[in-house]
């Protein structure tokens, strides 16, 4: 049992980190009153932009550790920032419907990811059979040098690339900022009641822009982590799958708290791969497909149960999904 956990937990964490990035990003966004359903698309864009950066860099010749991390990271952040700006421009400045804008962003983002993932080699004219960024990826997934010597402790806690720790740090930081600082208070005010916040002299539009763009950048890192670390630098179309949607569902699961998200993301990561470990018997391989349902069923049940309990402090930001227009009160 102990041996099982030692192999299972690192894999669950590997699955959970993209969800953690995604859900932290979405929580920050939702706290400003924007329900960004474009997060799955943003995560694809974050991933593919990192891949494009790394690909261009690897093609250019010798690979240096510092740049190998900085270039994909920067590309990924810029890509997801642009998606965030697009979303903000449409929903905050032009006051468009957030659901439709978000879904369009998902279509667009997944399209960008798969298109460039599938055509990058042809477009760049490079003569490689597939996108495998092993050199750059090695820098991303490099763990602490002494992790291997620490036995089970090292394996469970220290065997991850730096982005995994970054995810946890960002989540804790986001939690602290939202709860304990003045900008966090202002941000929550904007999400609860933009009209009140506006009357109190808070720049609603600025807060919405900054929170949503930051949220997108954090979520985009989830895509980057998935490709560069978890998938060892191999991009395959649609491999990222529906993790973006799970990240959005996790927001409700964690009742809008990034620190809770650390554990629940890893829990969900575990549920995501649990089907590989559950016994099926040789005769009934089809049952595995039913096991894959577990994370979604759990999410659905959690959704229903939280809505049944209906506690005041567990509610979404009051103005979530609504555009704000000062003259319209």
């Amino acid at each position, binding site marked *: 049992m102990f041996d099982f956990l030692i192999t299972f937990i690192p894999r669950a964490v590997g699955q959970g980190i993209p969800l953690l990035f995604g859900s932290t990003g979405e929580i920050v966004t939702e706290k400003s009153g924007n*329900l960004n*359903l474009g997060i799955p698309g943003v995560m694809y864009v974050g991933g593919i932009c990192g891949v494009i950066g790394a690909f261009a860099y690897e093609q250019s010749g010798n690979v240096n550790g510092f740049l190998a991390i900085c270039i994909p990271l920067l590309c990924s952040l810029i890509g997801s920032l642009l998606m965030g700006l*697009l979303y903000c*421009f*449409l929903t905050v*400045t*032009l*006051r*468009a*419907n957030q*659901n*439709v*804008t978000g*879904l*369009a*962003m*998902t*279509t*667009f*983002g*997944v*399209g*960008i*990811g*798969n*298109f*460039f*993932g*599938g*055509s990058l080699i*042809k*477009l760049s004219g490079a003569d490689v059979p597939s996108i495998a960024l092993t050199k750059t990826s090695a820098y991303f997934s490099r763990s602490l040098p002494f992790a291997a010597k620490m036995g089970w402790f090292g394996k469970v806690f220290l065997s991850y690339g730096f982005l995994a720790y970054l995810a946890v740090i960002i989540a804790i930081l986001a939690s602290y900022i939202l709860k304990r600082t003045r900008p966090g208070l202002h941000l929550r005010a904007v999400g609860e009641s933009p009209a009140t916040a506006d009357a109190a002299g808070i720049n609603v539009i600025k807060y919405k822009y900054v929170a949503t763009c930051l949220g997108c950048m954090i979520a985009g890192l989830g895509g980057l982590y998935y490709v560069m670390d978890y998938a060892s630098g191999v991009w395959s*179309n649609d491999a990222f799958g*529906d993790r973006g*949607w799970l990240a*959005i*569902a996790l927001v*409700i699961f964690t009742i809008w708290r990034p620190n809770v998200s650390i554990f629940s993301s890893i829990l969900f990561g575990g549920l995501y791969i649990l089907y590989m470990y559950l016994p099926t018997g040789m005769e009934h*391989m*089809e*049952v595995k*497909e*039913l096991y*894959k*349902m577990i994370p*979604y*069923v759990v*999410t*659905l049940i959690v*959704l*229903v149960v939280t*809505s*049944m309990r*209906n506690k005041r402090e567990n509610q*979404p930001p009051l103005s979530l999904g609504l555009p704000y*227009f000062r*003259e*319209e009160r």
Partner: protein
Amino acid sequence: MNNKKSEPLFHVIKRDDMTRGKAWGIRAISIVAALLLCALVTTVLTGDNPISVYATMFSGAFGSARKTWVTLQSLSILLIISLALTPAFRMRFWNCGGEGQVLMGGLAAAACMVTLDGKLPNALVIIIMIIASIAAGAIWGFIPAICKAKWNTNETLSTLMMNYIATQIVAYYTVLWESPKGSGKIGIINQNSNIGWLPEIGNKYLLSILVALLVTGFLYIYIYYSKHGYEICVVGESERTANYVGIKVPKVIVRTMLVSGALCGLAGLLLVGGINHTITTTIAGGQGFTAIMVSWLAKFNPITMIFTSLLIIFLGRGAGEIATVFELNQSFSDILTGIILFFIIGCEFFIRYKLVFRSGKKEEVKNV
């Protein structure tokens, strides 16, 4: 911006005076602008000139009689799903579960085809299939609806999760029924007996087109000229008002989602029984999501929806052709669709609001 004056360069005011013709004019301009940008993007990526890009796209969608029929067939399926989602959207119930409802409808049809083969006469099998698919879709719509009605569960997320649950159920049956064993797919069901294949009218494409037209007519009447449609509209505008005038909101939510799910199930039936004669987890092909945007673009009007779904299908098939000709990835159409959607979403602003520029200064032109 000029800091000496406190008055900003321009301010935004709401307008109510936009005529319908003018509003569609603005939308048309934005679509044209979006198509120009799409052409530019395509030109940059492929090096082809913009005019021949659109010629390629057009030939992809309508290049031959067969291509035109296929386009019309895809159009009819997308149209049915969009129509199915529309009553829910008019009620402000964000049914993102079209995908799952279509899958369950399709699965029910496939189940009838597999299990009733050789046991019942063909006509009876088809009747059972129709009932089963519609019921399966309706059940998949009912579950999120009852949660929403009873406990106000967020429907966007619950319907999304239902999609994935449906996908896994289909995956389960795909393994269970796979033929030949180990191929990982079901293959054409009843290839020899043709039991459960929906009858062809004229040619094999016409049936779904006719069904789509019927559903359009039905929904137009249902939404605009029936008591149910009126109740949906009131609930969508304001639940409090609905309560006040004595409309039972939970009942309307559940009933509308049953209709919505049932129509999605019908689309699944057509996909499995009429078009593909097999079922895969990707048979809905993301159309459950595309339909949300088709429906929204048409302002939830069934007649307009014919044109918006045509636009999306044209782009999809056209971009597919470009991708084939230039050996690019098929996801190219998603990018083009995204660009067009962003433009149309953005242009709504200029229909609802207008910019008033600071007077006394030079009038500045703000680009759309």
